[in-house]
């Protein structure tokens, strides 16, 4: 009897099954942790995908939450923030599966987790960081981070040589040293525009999502919540190399949909797989190569 509380859902779990299944897929797509954690996560996530009784068992999700937390401790302080969010989400799923109706508590946890994650991201960008609001973060990152190179060249017209020259400029010199011919920093108007749009666009979008998810208004702004979250995920994860974060946000957005909101649910699933394609296809690099080949 007591065991049943942990191995069977407390009530109606069918509406949450898709959400749980997509979470299990994420766990399989991005294996994580040291040798004593990774295989167990993969095993549980794989079993959850193929066996409905495993998918719906609260104990499985609580175990996954503990395993992800174990990974956070084992690799401290290196794990990215979405791994923390994943641990909270697995915990939320395990707790919700014990409720008489799984959807409401899961939707509540999802709404607050999304809202709070965006609130803290906003706090860092707008208040705590010394180099975000003045545009330095994106001006430097777009130049230096190789994962953005294709998109930067595609959108700003900078050549690979100019990008390399700018990277040389952004290298610190040993104390007291001066170059005879220091490299110039090439920053075309299109680049300034891109860095500015990324800086303030991201800030505005994160502020809107934090507000929409945390303020206690319900039906009136519900569709706005979904539209902003979907827009954020599709725009951001087309460029940002953190598909795991995008999937998690989409899964938590999906957890807040009613079963009858079919179009919205479809939009979330479509975006989930779009992010998968963004993460696996170097689309910007391929476009740059194609354009160079056509010249």
């Amino acid at each position: 009897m007591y065991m049943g509380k942990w191995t069977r859902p407390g009530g109606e779990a069918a509406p949450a099954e898709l959400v749980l299944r997509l979470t299990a897929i994420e766990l399989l797509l991005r294996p994580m942790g040291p040798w004593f954690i990774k295989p167990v996560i993969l095993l549980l996530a794989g079993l959850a995908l193929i066996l409905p009784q495993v998918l719906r068992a609260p104990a499985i999700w609580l175990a996954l939450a503990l395993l992800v937390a174990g990974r956070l401790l084992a690799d401290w302080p290196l794990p990215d923030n979405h791994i923390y969010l994943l641990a909270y989400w697995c915990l939320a799923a395990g707790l919700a599966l014990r409720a008489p109706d799984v959807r409401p508590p899961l939707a509540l946890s999802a709404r607050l987790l999304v809202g709070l994650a965006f609130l803290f991201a906003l706090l860092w960008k707008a208040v705590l960081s010394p180099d975000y609001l003045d545009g330095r973060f994106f001006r430097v990152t777009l130049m230096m981070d190789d994962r953005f190179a294709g998109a930067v060249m595609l959108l700003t017209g900078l050549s690979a040589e100019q990008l390399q020259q700018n990277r040389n400029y952004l290298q610190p010199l040993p104390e007291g040293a001066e170059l005879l011919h220091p490299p110039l920093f090439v920053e075309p108007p299109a680049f300034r525009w891109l860095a500015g749009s990324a800086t303030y666009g991201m800030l505005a979008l994160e502020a809107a999502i934090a507000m929409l998810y945390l303020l206690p208004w319900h039906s009136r702004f519900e569709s706005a919540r979904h539209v902003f979250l979907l827009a954020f995920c599709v725009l951001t994860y087309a460029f940002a190399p953190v598909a795991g974060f995008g999937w998690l946000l989409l899964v938590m957005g999906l957890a807040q949909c009613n079963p009858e909101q079919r179009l919205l649910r479809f939009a979330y699933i479509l975006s989930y797989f779009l992010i998968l394609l963004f993460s696996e296809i170097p689309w910007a690099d391929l476009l740059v190569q194609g354009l160079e080949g056509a010249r």
Partner: protein
Amino acid sequence: MALALAPPALLVVVACVQIVLTHRTGLTPWKGGGFGMFATTDGTQFRYVRLFVDAPDRSEELDVPPSLEELAARAQALPSTGQLERLARAVAAREQRKRRPAETVRVEVWRIDFAPGTLQATSRLLQQHQFHVHGQMDSTGR
């Protein structure tokens, strides 16, 4: 329904602790569960570790060997005395295995700052720690 508030509450606690740790220990805002990623250049990409070994007739800066990259990455992300001490001890042990003299190991964590406007890059020492192979240790902060 009240249990549904537990995961968000945990998020708030961890994120607040992360903010304190960034100020007290130099933890990079990108790590630690506070959602400070993509907010500042003070991430591990713009931090680096320098290792120095001293002994009679030896004073040398070492490259971070592949076997110590993970420890170095941890020290870069969180330059606390504990992390630097672990890295320094591992360097000393490696030197001993290679039968190279080492009396003190110094670990330094640096970060690159970019000037507003010009983006001129300068390096700044965040934290350093000295480990005496046969004795005590000492650290100096930021």
